[in-house]
Each structure stands twice: as C-alpha cells, then as structure tokens.
C-alpha cells in the first residue's frame, strides 16, 4: 500500500514538475541571456492566465486559450523589457537595482489584476477528461496533455537552442555578450527573442498552472514563482537543463512529502531540499554555467 502511495505521488509529482519545468526553463533562459533576474515572471504568468480565462469564459477551448496566453505572455515580456528594464540598464542601474525594479513590477501588475478581478478565486471551464491508470499512477486526460505540452516545449526548446541559428546566437550571448557582439551577432535581436520566448513559456506555464491548481487568484502566479525559483536555483540558475532537472526533483519530492508524511509539508519539503542543496553546492546542481557567468559579470 505504501508503495502504491509512493508511485501515485510520483505521478502527481510529474504533473507538478511539468508545470514547473515550463516555468523554470523560461525564467532561467531569459536570465542567462539578459543577466536580469526577472521576479515579474510570476505576474506575466498571472496576466497570461487571466487572458486565457477571459477567452475561456466566453466559450473558447482552453487549449486554444493556451496558445493565445503564450502569445500574450511573450508580448508582455518583450514590452516590459523594452519600456522599462532595458532603459534602466542603459541608465546604469545595477544588478540589485534591477531585482528591486522587477519586484516592483510584480507588485504593480499583481495588484492591478487584483484591483480589476477582485480578491476571489476563479476556475477555467475545462473537463478533466477520462482517467487513465498507469500502474498505481492515475492521470486525467488534462494532466496527460499538460505533461505532453511540457515535454514538447522542452524538446522544441532543446532543438531550437542546439540547432537553429538563433539558438546558437542565444547561447553565444549567454556565455559572453561582448564576444558575441564582436562576432557580428545582433545581440539586440537575440535579447528580444529571449524575452519573447521566456514570456511565451511564462504564459503557457501560467495556464497549465491554473488548470492544475483548479482555482486561482491574482496572486497565484507570483506565489508559484517562488517554487519555480527554487527549482531553477536547485538546478543552477542560467542553466536550461539544470532547470528541467530542478523542476523534476522539486515536483516529485514535494508530492512525495505531501503524500507520505503530511500534505502541509508539500512546499516546505521543496524548500528544505533547496536549502540542503545550497549547503552542498552553493550555486546549484549544474553550476558550471552560473559559475562562469559570475566571472564574466
């Protein structure tokens, strides 16, 4: 029985990890290219999620809403950078200043949403679909689609980073922006693309998070951001594959702790894990990239 419980917890963990992975990769991708820790990422998730809600409430299919939300997230993310973050960096705002700026943006956006929609909770109109059993794991169709979306997004990103010109340019900018510029890479475009992709991933993560949690409010995105950060830090910030690994670890560990020990431990377990990892490897599991960046910065 205990074994079954464990296996089914792993099943839940995989669903959580899928949401986390999409978010953590988006968060870390943009950081590695632009060097800005964007704490407004959770608000982009929320706004995209509510955009999807506005359409969904008018009868649009949720998966179509997901695409629109992804697009909305991308546009919002690029706009935030173009209108606020990039000009501030040009004005010489330092790293810590940028953290405070992004957290200000998060507060402003979250509370704008809250002022509009109010403090109540919302749900999408989506049927969970048939349930499927894989051993002791139980998945609804919706959950399987969520996992599928995450897997496809990760694979697509992997292929894009590895094999396309933009992907290579993006990795070059992430490793050494000055050198990349000297090599003729149009860093400006690459940076915009990174903000866009990160926003798209944020938007998608927002919608699948809201589907997964069943009910959501104006602060759900930013609350979840902290777990995304935990996953990203765990894997080593700035490292896309580290973020995927971190997401998987955080997702599964938190669900196991919730199922086997106490549901109230769900998030705490993830954080305790993060603390332990940071004690052993201060820069996260896959830290080489983050460490090298530090030399550059």
């Amino acid at each position: 029985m205990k074994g079954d419980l464990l296996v089914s917890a792993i099943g839940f963990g995989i669903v959580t990890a899928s949401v986390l992975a999409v978010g953590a990769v988006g968060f870390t991708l943009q950081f590695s290219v632009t060097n800005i820790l964007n704490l407004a990422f959770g608000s982009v998730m929320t706004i995209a999620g509510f955009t999807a809600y506005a359409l969904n409430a008018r009868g649009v299919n949720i998966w179509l809403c997901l695409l629109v939300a992804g697009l909305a997230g991308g546009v919002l993310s690029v706009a935030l950078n173009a209108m606020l973050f990039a000009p501030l960096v040009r004005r010489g705002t330092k790293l810590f200043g940028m953290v405070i700026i992004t957290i200000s943006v998060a507060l402003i956006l979250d509370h704008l949403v809250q002022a509009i929609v109010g403090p109540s909770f919302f749900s999408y109109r989506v049927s969970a679909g048939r349930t499927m059993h894989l051993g002791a794991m139980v998945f609804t169709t919706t959950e399987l689609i969520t996992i599928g979306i995450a897997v496809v997004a990760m694979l697509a990103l992997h292929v894009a980073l590895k094999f396309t010109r933009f992907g290579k340019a993006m990795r070059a900018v992430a490793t050494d922006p000055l050198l990349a510029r000297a090599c003729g890479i149009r860093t400006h475009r690459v940076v915009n693309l990174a903000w866009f992709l990160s926003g798209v991933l944020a938007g998608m993560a927002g919608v699948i998070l809201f589907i997964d949690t069943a009910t959501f409010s104006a602060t759900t995105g930013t609350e979840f951001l902290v777990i995304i950060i935990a996953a990203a830090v765990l894997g080593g910030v700035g490292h896309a594959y580290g973020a995927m690994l971190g997401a998987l670890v955080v997702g599964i560990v938190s669900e196991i702790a919730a199922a086997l020990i106490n549901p109230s431990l769900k998030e705490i377990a993830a954080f305790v894990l993060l603390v332990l990892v940071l004690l052993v490897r201060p820069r996260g599991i896959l830290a080489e990239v983050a460490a090298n960046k530090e030399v550059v910065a």
Partner: protein
Amino acid sequence: MSAATQLYVITLLVYFFVDLMVCWGLDLQFGVAGVLNFAYIVFQAAGAYTTAVLTLGPSSGNGGFQHYVGGARLPFPLPLLAAMVVGVLLALFVGFIGLRRLRSDYQAMVMLVVSVIATAIADTQLNLVNGPAGLALVPKPLASSISLSPLGYGWLFVVFSGVVCVLVGWLIHRIVESPLGRTLRAIREDERAAAALGRNVNGSRLLVFVIGGAVAALSGGILVEFVGAWAPSGWLYPETFVLFTAIIVGGRANVFGVALGALLIPVGLQQAVEYIPIVNSPTVLASLEWIITGLVTITFLWVRPQGLLPERRRTVRSIDRAVRRRAVVIAAGTSESLGGGP
C-alpha cells in the same frame, strides 16, 4: 488633543520608531554593505514570535485557544533580549546558507525563497506559532506594575521605543563611520577587489546579516508588545519591499535619508492612501497602496537612484578630522580641484 487623536498619534509614533529601527538595520545590510536581504521581515517576525511566546506563558495555560511551542512567562526585558538572540541565530543560519559565494541578485532570490518558506512554515505548522490565526493577547510589558492610564502608558511606550530606536541608530552610525564601515562600503562596490585587499567578504556580510537580524528581531519584539498580536499575514515578503522602498526614497547609506524614508513611506504613504476619497473598497485600497509603492520605487530608481538625501561624500578633510584635532595642510589643495570635477 482628544483621547482618540492621542491614541492615533501614539500608534503612529511607535510605528515610526519601529520602522525606523528596522530601516536602519536593513540599510546597514543593503545601503552600506550591498547585501540584498529580501527575507528581512522574517527576522522581525522571529523576534515578534519569540517575544510573544516568552510573554504569553505556557501554551496550555491560556484556555487552549492558541497553540505554540516554548511558552514561558519571563519578566519584561528578557523576552526582548531573547528575541535578539533568536535573530542572531537565525541570521547565522540563513546567512550561512544564502550568502556564500553568490552574486548579489542571486542572493536576493535565495532570500526571497527563504521569506516565503518561513511564512509557509508558520502558516501550515499549526502548533508552532498557532498557524494562520497567529498569536494574540500578548500582555503589555510591566502594565500591571505601572499604574498609568492607558494613554499615559501609551506615551511611556512611545518614549521607550524612541529611546531604543535612537540607541540602535547611534550604534549603527558608529559602525558606518568607522574603518569597518569603509570596508563594508568597499565590499558593496566591488567584492572581488575587497577580497584581493585582504577583506573577508563572506565574514563581513555575515556580520551585517547578524547585526541587522538582531535589530529586526528587537523591533519585532517591541511591535508585538505594543500591538499585542502577530500573524503570518502581517509579514508576507512584500513587507520587506516596503522597507527597501523607504531606503531608496530617503537615500541609502545615509542615516538621515533613511529616517526621512521611514517617515515618508511606511508611515506617511500608507496613511495618505487611507485618505483617498474615491475608493471605497478596502481590497482595492490595499492594492492601490502596493501599486503606488511600486511606482514610487521605480520612479526613484529611474530619476533619482541616490535618494532624496544621498550618501555623504567622505572628503579627505573629514577623514583627517576624524583622527586629528585639525585637518592637515593637503586638504587646502583638495577643495579647488573638486570644483573642476564632473
């Protein structure tokens, strides 16, 4: 003044002194040493809980309506001292995890996570500090042995918190204006260069972390003794952000700037928002407060990042003055060259 007005003023003053104390402690970390402690409010909470628990008496002894660990009924100054000890220990623990060899913004992120963990623990572990309901009915210190009217007691508390606040500010000022203070500012500017000149960067950061932690814990203790209650909803991570805003607006690494910021933002702005006539929903009002705070922060970082009262330039003359009765001759040439500076 009517009794109601007096009560209002008393409350504002105590809040101001507590906020000022916390801002000075945070400024030592952020403005002076460049450590971004987004978990700062957690230290205030730790101090408040410690003080409350050590004042309330045993958990079982109050009708069983609130549950917590480590209850005791200690006489007046002891709970506050214990709060400071807890603040120090927590700072050592968190600092050891989060400060090592990490870039400043990366540290900020880890601290943010710590802040959220702490709230999650207090919220979900119901028997630790009574869960989301929090602790209430914390007795006022020495209330039974001082025979004063409630208002008289209130004014006494204002004096008490004011004295503690000034004392804290004076000690922090001493640190900032000492050779150690210069080292901290150098670490803020360039930690690599500071290490290459023999300074223990991690050790220094841990030091300001501990001092700030003790100050925050003390302030939390004083606040809970005044308010009588403390719950997780009162120390969510954005509360730390308000303190950052105060420091940025007032002027970081400037004692008076920080005081001005503490007056303008946590006390002034939040009071002012209450008087906006067009809004009648309390939740929208709360949202508006956060939106304004966020906008103020962005505006200042954009237009005047050094704050209203910028950090003082330590001239050769003032450095010389600190160790001599009179400035040395070289200072004469310095003032004219300054005129040509950018």
